[in-house]
C-alpha cells in the first residue's frame, strides 16, 4: 500500500490510465482542429469527437446529437439554468431548485433573481432527500425550470430523479439535473427519467479536467440561449474550439463507467460498508450524514462529535479527505449542505467526507480505519468538550462566550 491515500473522489478523480492511453495520440500526432473541414487532420479529429459524443450519449441513454461539449459541469450548469431561463422568460419567471445544490447551480439561480426571476429553494429532509410532493406543490403556471442534482457532492444522497421527472413532464416544466456526481455512478436514463438537461463532468468520472458535457433534449426540443458566442460550434449552444484530447478522454471515461458500473458499484459499496462498520464499532458519538440507502456507493460523510474536522484532517494527513465541499473548505463556515439537513453547526464542524472510488483498496480502507480511530481518540483527549461530556455536563446548557 502506498501513502498518501487518496479518499477524496467527490472532489476529483484520478484519470483512469486506460482513459489517458486513448487521449495521448490526440495530444501528439493527431492534433487537428475538429473544426478544420479542409483536411484529414480536422476530419479525424471530428470523427473522434463524434465517437466520444456517442459514448457519452450511451451512458445516459440519449441520442449523440443531444450532447454538447463544455469546459465542465460548472459551465454546463450555467448554460442550462441561465440559458433556459433567459430563452423562456416570456413564458414564466419561476425556477425551482433545492438548497443543497452545487454552487454552480445556486449562484446561477441567485444571478437570475437579479434579472427579475423568482427562485424557490426547496428544503430537504434530514436524510437529504427531496420531498417530491413538496416539489409538485411548488410548481406554478410561471415555473419554467426545475433543477435538482442527481447525487450530492458532500453527502452522496441520490435524489428520486424518475419521480421528479414524471412530475415535471406532467406539468410541462423543463427538468435539469446536475449529474456531475451521479453520471457513471448510478443508472441514468433520460427517457425513463424524463430528463431535459443533464450536466456531466469529466474529472468526476476518471476523465480529464477541463471538459464536461450538457445533454439537451431534442424531442420535444429544448431551446436555450447560449452564454458564449463565436463560431457557432455545438448547435450554436456553445462556441469555442473543441479540445479533441479532452473530449476523447471524456468519451472513453463514459464508456468505461458504463461497462463497469454494476461490478464497480458493488465493490465500492462493500468497501464503504467495511469502513463505516470499522469506525462505528470502535468509536462512539459518531453519526453518518445523509441517507445511507439512497446514496452513492463511494461517499461516507461522518461527524465525529467533539473533534473539529480540520484538525482531524491534519491528524490523518496521510489520507486525503475533505471537510465539507472542496469549494468551501477554504472558508470557515460550516457546510451549507449539512446545515440544510438540520445538522447543528457544532456537529457540522466535526464532519469529514471520505470519498471512495475505482482505485480504493481494502488495505487502504483498513489503514484508514486504524488511523482515523486513533486520531479521533487522541483529539478527544485534547478536546475540552469531550472532557465536559465525560463529566456529564450537557453542552447545550453551557453559555458560550461567542466571539
Amino acid at each position, binding site marked *: 500500500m502506498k501513502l498518501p491515500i487518496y479518499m477524496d473522489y467527490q472532489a476529483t478523480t484520478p484519470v483512469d490510465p486506460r482513459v489517458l492511453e486513448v487521449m495521448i495520440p490526440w495530444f501528439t500526432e493527431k492534433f487537428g482542429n475538429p473544426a478544420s473541414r479542409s483536411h484529414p487532420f480536422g476530419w479525424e479529429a471530428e470523427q473522434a469527437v463524434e465517437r466520444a459524443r456517442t459514448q457519452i450519449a450511451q451512458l445516459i441513454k440519449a441520442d449523440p446529437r443531444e450532447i454538447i461539449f463544455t469546459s465542465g459541469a460548472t459551465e454546463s450548469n450555467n448554460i442550462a439554468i441561465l440559458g433556459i431561463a433567459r430563452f423562456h422568460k416570456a413564458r414564466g419567471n419561476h425556477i425551482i431548485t433545492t438548497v443543497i445544490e452545487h454552487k454552480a447551480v445556486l449562484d446561477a439561480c441567485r444571478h437570475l433573481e437579479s434579472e427579475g426571476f423568482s427562485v424557490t429553494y426547496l428544503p430537504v429532509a434530514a436524510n437529504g432527500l427531496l420531498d417530491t410532493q413538496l416539489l409538485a406543490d411548488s410548481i406554478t403556471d410561471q415555473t419554467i425550470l426545475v433543477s435538482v442534482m442527481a447525487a450530492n457532492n458532500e453527502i452522496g444522497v441520490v435524489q428520486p430523479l424518475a419521480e421528479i421527472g414524471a412530475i415535471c413532464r406532467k406539468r410541462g416544466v423543463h427538468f435539469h439535473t446536475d449529474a456531475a456526481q451521479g453520471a457513471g455512478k448510478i443508472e441514468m436514463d433520460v427517457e425513463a427519467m424524463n430528463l431535459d438537461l443533464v450536466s456531466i463532468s469529466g474529472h468526476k468520472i476518471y476523465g480529464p479536467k477541463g471538459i464536461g458535457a450538457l445533454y439537451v433534449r431534442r424531442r420535444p426540443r429544448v431551446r436555450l440561449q447560449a452564454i458564449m458566442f463565436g463560431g457557432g460550434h455545438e448547435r450554436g449552444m456553445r462556441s469555442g474550439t473543441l479540445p479533441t484530447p479532452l473530449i476523447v478522454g471524456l468519451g472513453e471515461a463514459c464508456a468505461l463507467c458504463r461497462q463497469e458500473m454494476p461490478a464497480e458499484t458493488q465493490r465500492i459499496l462493500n468497501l464503504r460498508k467495511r469502513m463505516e462498520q470499522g469506525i462505528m464499532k470502535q468509536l462512539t458519538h459518531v453519526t453518518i450524514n445523509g441517507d445511507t440507502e439512497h446514496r452513492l456507493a463511494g461517499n461516507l460523510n461522518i461527524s465525529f462529535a467533539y473533534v473539529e474536522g480540520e484538525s482531524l484532517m491534519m491528524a490523518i494527513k496521510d489520507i486525503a479527505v475533505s471537510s465539507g465541499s472542496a469549494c468551501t473548505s477554504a472558508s470557515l463556515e460550516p457546510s451549507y449542505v449539512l446545515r440544510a439537513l438540520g445538522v447543528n453547526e457544532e456537529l457540522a464542524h466535526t464532519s469529514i467526507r471520505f470519498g471512495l472510488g475505482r482505485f480504493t483498496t481494502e488495505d487502504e480502507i483498513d489503514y484508514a480505519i486504524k488511523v482515523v480511530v486513533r486520531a479521533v481518540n487522541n483529539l478527544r483527549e485534547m478536546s475540552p468538550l469531550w472532557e465536559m461530556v465525560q463529566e456529564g455536563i450537557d453542552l447545550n446548557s453551557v453559555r458560550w462566550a461567542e*466571539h
Partner: protein
Amino acid sequence: MAYNDKVLEHYEKPRNVGSLDKNDTHVGTGMVGAPACGDVMKLQIRVNDDGVIDDAKFKTFGCGSAIASSSLVTEWIKGKTIDQALAIKNKDIAEELALPPVKIHCSVLAEDAIRSAVEDYRKKQKGGSHAP
C-alpha cells in the same frame, strides 16, 4: 491550506495538554470560544504564592492553528507573572506561528483564554465563586 512548520510542530507535539484541578484556589480556568464557531479553548493556570504561573494546561477543540496557539501560549506563560502573561498579545502569537489571515482568530482566542484564566484566578483569590 499549507501549514507553517511551527504550527505543525505544536500540533503534532502539543505541550501541556491536560487539566488541572479546577477547584484548587491557585488554579484559574479560562474557557473561550463556542462549539458552533468551530473552536473552544480551555486554558488553566496555576499561580504560586509569588504570583508566578508555575503550571499551565490546555484542551482545545479546533483546527490545527487553534491547537498550536494554545500549546504555544502554555509554553510562554509558564514561569511568567500574571502581568507578564497578560502582556502577551494575539499579534505575538500570530507572528510566532506565522498564521495566515484566515487563522488570526485562533491567536485572538488564545489571548482571550489567558485573560479569562487570569480573571477566574483573581476572582477566586478575592474569595469569589468556583470556576464555571
